[in-house]
């Protein structure tokens, strides 16, 4: 047979591409469940790391099942809030937001042609009162995301964990790999009254003569990773300012029930009016 004829060439390439595509589609579908389970466990371990229940390496060691069990043990409530800080709906306690879902919400926050609806911002509250919220944004080469944990009813940051898709190893990748960078967040405060809720700047916060930090919402950026640091700064500002109303209510105890919650009271019963009465 003449393998160089046009007809043969077209048929041959068509057949081989269709066969390969079908095979890949089949494999992708059959492995999807397992991949999603891995991704979910990874996301949960990031949230647990941000909330200071352990280090990411610890969670990697104990495995998926133990991570899910730990999360089920510690989580108290999960719900979404809108941009005005009002609660939208309760989430099942094993529900987490994958980076893909965070991306969608990121579009909703920022507006533009990719906006699909009003932002639904997830809030995760652990039994010890720690509140964890996600952030999402653009790094230098690809998306970056992460979780910031706040102390009970306060704007003090308890911990943070960040992840990325393809930041430069050894430089931008430090947002994920360098525990010292993540540790810088601990004890800082998010300033929800300002547009720049949190700042990652060269040199960190200005200090007085004794070396005490004068500003409590600034940390030092990563040397050699200016674009990633700026991207992270922008991601944190965008997301935390979307949560500002929720946290302002939460922190001052006026709007949200975080402060005036009674023992055993269900989330639905905890209305604005009830808080105001007290």
């Amino acid at each position: 047979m003449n393998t160089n004829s046009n007809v043969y060439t077209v048929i041959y390439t068509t057949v081989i591409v269709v066969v390969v595509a079908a095979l890949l589609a089949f494999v992708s579908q059959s492995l999807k469940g397992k991949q999603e389970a891995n991704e979910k466990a990874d996301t949960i371990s990031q949230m647990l790391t941000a909330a200071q229940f352990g280090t990411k390496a610890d969670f990697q060691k104990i495995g998926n099942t133990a991570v899910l069990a730990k999360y089920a043990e510690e989580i108290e409530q999960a719900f979404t809030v809108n941009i005005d800080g009002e609660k939208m709906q309760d989430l099942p306690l094993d529900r987490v937001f994958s980076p893909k879902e965070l991306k969608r919400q990121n579009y909703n926050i920022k507006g533009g042609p990719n906006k699909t609806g009003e932002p639904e911002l997830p809030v995760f509250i652990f039994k010890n009162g720690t509140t964890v919220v996600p952030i999402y944004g653009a790094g230098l080469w690809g998306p970056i995301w992460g979780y910031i944990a706040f102390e009970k009813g306060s704007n003090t940051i308890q911990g943070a964990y960040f992840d990325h898709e393809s930041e430069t190893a050894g430089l931008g990748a430090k947002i994920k790999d360098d525990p010292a960078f993540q540790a810088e967040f601990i004890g800082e405060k998010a300033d929800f009254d300002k547009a720049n809720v949190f700042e990652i700047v060269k040199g960190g916060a200005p200090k007085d003569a004794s070396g005490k930090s004068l500003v409590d919402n600034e940390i030092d950026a990563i040397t050699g990773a200016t674009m990633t640091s700026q991207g992270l700064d922008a991601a944190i500002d965008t997301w935390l300012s979307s949560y500002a109303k929720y946290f302002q209510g939460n922190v001052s105890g006026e709007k949200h029930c975080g402060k005036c919650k009674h023992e055993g009271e269900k989330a639905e019963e905890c209305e604005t009016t009830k808080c105001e009465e007290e």
Partner: protein
Amino acid sequence: MDAKLKETILNPIFKGNPITVLVLGICSSLAVTVTMKGALVMTLSVIVVCGISSLILSLLRNTIPGRVRIIVQLVVVAMMVILVDQVLKSFEATYAIDKQLSVYIGLIITNCIVMGRIEAFALGNKPWPSFLDGVANGAGYGIILIIVAFFRELLGSGTLFGFDILNRFGYIPNNLVILPPFALILLGCIVWVQRSIQKDLQEK
């Protein structure tokens, strides 16, 4: 085993090593050699992709239209790379390492060793020798990767496979070793050693 087949297997490991002699696959060997684990997973992935793509294309070699043979090779190699990536993502043990290697697993497709061996060997030889040639070239690549990763993880993190080796003796990890330029220095040293053993590689 006849001599020719033996040569097919042994040549890429040392005498005709794809990295140190043919200088292929340099990019990924600088990128994924920070840890032994990463290097090992990368090595296995390249062996699988290289071996099986060579096998498939050698089976098809008499039917492939000459004018589109590179495209057909590309389709088969891409399929293998995606399969490997999907499988790595599915297992709990390899999920984290796949995330760490991120784009480099996908970039195996651009690794010149794979397409180079298919074009140079698999299209002109029977399936079994082609498969062995692919595996051996993957292994030759992997050996260098593992040697480089051994030094980089030991000196850069003080560990091997994540287990503490040097840090317990008060070793302070050298950050320079973690950065890609040091991998290039190490590669240079390996080429140096090989050339002083194998005199016929030296230019007059």
